[in-house]
């Protein structure tokens, strides 16, 4: 491989992306969405922080350690703003990735410039690698600008993240980049296998819908229940649920209460607990597998974990990355697989 050919092609692709109206439009939408998300998140964060401080003051005045203890884990974090931005990014970023990649090869076929390009002193792999590299550069630039804009907006609101929060923001940025890159690589693959750009776009959208919406449906309760059965019902008892939430995350716990005159069979209760545990374990395993297959699922899992507020019970960054290792690997593996397939297909492309 000669680095010259790769550099020339990557440079042209990068420049083409930056000059493309499509990129301008989507990048502008992305930047606006990020800015709006950040402003909304920052305003909400300020409000949550104010509410938290007020509750803490009441708890301290009431001298009620139970109340203070219950609310201690809910201290708002600046990362809640990124959580909101991330939800928007999952939609727009995916479109940006597809829009940047779906015609990279088909455009060359349609303009009949591919044959001439391959007749220059350049290896085939330099062509596909250069196209990918140019696209990755443009995505990285777009993500970098969006991240810089978000930090600038936080600074405007007087919010200064701590080192831990800043690292988590970087994790969010890298995950967002990988999400866009995944769909860029998918679109590049479709561009190599399709005869024209219209087909490549259509196939990309179909796979995107399958990965982002269709696959995760299997982990949702109604579909899951239809396939694997309902959760076991408790033996003759009354239940209630208690839910706490903030703008950034939701904590749900279920408590079971017994009336004093209820006759509970201890064996039935033990059987219910065993069946419940088994059901939940199975459901978690299937949900985890489904999430790993879905890039947006992985992204949202990473986003959710990275944007958890810092507190005494919050895992450190090392533990966080350890817990997210599978999702991070999946988010790395999927674009690698798409690009690998695109590479092989392009290398075998029949030029006539």
């Amino acid at each position, binding site marked *: 491989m*000669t680095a*010259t*050919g790769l550099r*020339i092609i990557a440079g*042209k692709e990068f420049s083409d992306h930056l000059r493309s109206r499509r990129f301008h439009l989507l990048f502008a939408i992305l930047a606006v969405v990020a800015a709006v998300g950040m402003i909304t998140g920052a305003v909400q964060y300020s409000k949550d922080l104010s509410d938290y401080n007020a509750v803490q003051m009441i708890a301290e005045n009431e001298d009620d350690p139970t109340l203070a203890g219950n609310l201690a884990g809910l201290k708002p974090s600046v990362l809640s703003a990124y959580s909101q931005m991330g939800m928007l990014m999952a939609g727009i970023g995916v479109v940006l990735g597809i829009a940047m990649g779906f015609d990279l090869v088909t455009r060359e076929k349609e*303009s*009949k*410039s*591919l*044959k*001439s390009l*391959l*007749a*220059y*002193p*350049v*290896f085939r792999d330099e062509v596909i690698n250069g196209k990918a590299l140019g696209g990755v550069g443009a995505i990285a630039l777009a993500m970098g600008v969006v991240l810089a804009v978000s930090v600038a907006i936080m600074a405007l609101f007087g919010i200064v993240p701590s080192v831990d929060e800043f690292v988590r923001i970087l994790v969010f940025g890298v995950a967002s980049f990988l999400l866009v890159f995944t769909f860029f690589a998918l679109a590049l693959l479709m561009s190599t296998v399709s005869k024209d750009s219209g087909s490549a776009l259509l196939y990309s959208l179909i796979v995107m819908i399958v990965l982002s919406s269709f696959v995760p449906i299997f982990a949702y309760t109604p579909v899951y229940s239809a396939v694997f059965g309902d959760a076991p019902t408790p033996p003759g008892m009354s239940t209630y649920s208690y839910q706490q939430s903030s703008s950034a995350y939701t904590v749900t716990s279920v408590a079971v209460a017994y009336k004093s005159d209820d006759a509970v069979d201890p064996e039935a209760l033990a059987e219910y607990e065993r069946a419940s545990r088994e059901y939940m374990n199975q459901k978690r395993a299937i949900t985890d597998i489904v999430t790993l297959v879905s890039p947006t699922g992985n992204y949202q899992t990473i986003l959710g974990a990275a944007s958890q507020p810092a507190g005494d019970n919050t895992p450190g960054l090392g533990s966080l990355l350890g817990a997210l290792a599978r999702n991070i690997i999946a988010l790395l593996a999927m674009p690698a697989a798409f690009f690998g397939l695109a590479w092989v297909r392009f290398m075998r492309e*029949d*030029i*006539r």
Partner: protein
Amino acid sequence: MILCDHLTKDYNGVPAVDDLCLEIPAGEVFGLLGPNGAGKSTTILMLVGLIQPTSGACSIDGIEVAAHPIEVKKKIGYMPEDVGFYPDLPAEENLDYAAKFYGLSEAERKRRVGDLLTLVGLDSVGTKVGGYSKGMRQRLGLARALVNDPAVVILDEPTANLDPRGVLDYRRIVKGLAEQGTTVLVSSHILSEVSKVCTSVGILARGKLIASGDREMLSRAAMQDRVTIDVETMTPMPRLTNPEILSAEYSQDTCSARIVAKHDISTLIAEALYAEGILPRRLAVEKPDMEDILLSYYTEGAA
């Protein structure tokens, strides 16, 4: 300079190029002729390293294409039949992009691009290539094939979309290349174009080289088969007898005849008429034109 050694390319078991052996010396302007589907473009794609031969080999300037494609690509300039460019870039940027791959400095690229656009008559066109006509693209394709000042230029159907002025410019450019000693391979099914610029030709049919040599040699070879002689006399002529005569058609008054012979026997016919005391009014040998020659070869190759 260009060598094909038992070059074969199969597509799904069907040979597009079949055991092609061809040698084109340096400085030659060689015309590769053949009907559509004869294997001309496939041969060229193998020569420029875009496809691999099924068997056999080809080389440019002694370098085997399949083994050293980059070295070969640096030596050649190629214009494909369906010439394509980046439509959203002007001609200068399209050529500059191509020139970058050959390691030319920026100043050198700028000078070369300017010279080539002047050479092909596109120097005053400011629009993006997307707005070019087919003929203009063809001109630009020729310029791009010359961007690296190649030792070998390979042109696939170079005049397909050119207007008469464009064709004249193309001939001028190819002749200029020949004067510089550049080896040129022109593929075409338009014989008149090949005959105007090429010093030698090869004829492909069904992937096989069925004839090659200089134009005169091919013409002579074709004439060796049969010659038509038109005879017109002032008075009725007798039936001509000669072992060389293959067939003869006489008019009703036997004052004219169309003789088909194995060779040119016009002198013998004149002597025979003179011996009979008949004055010939017209005695014309019909030499087959190049199109007839080509068609005869195609027919022969297809048989």
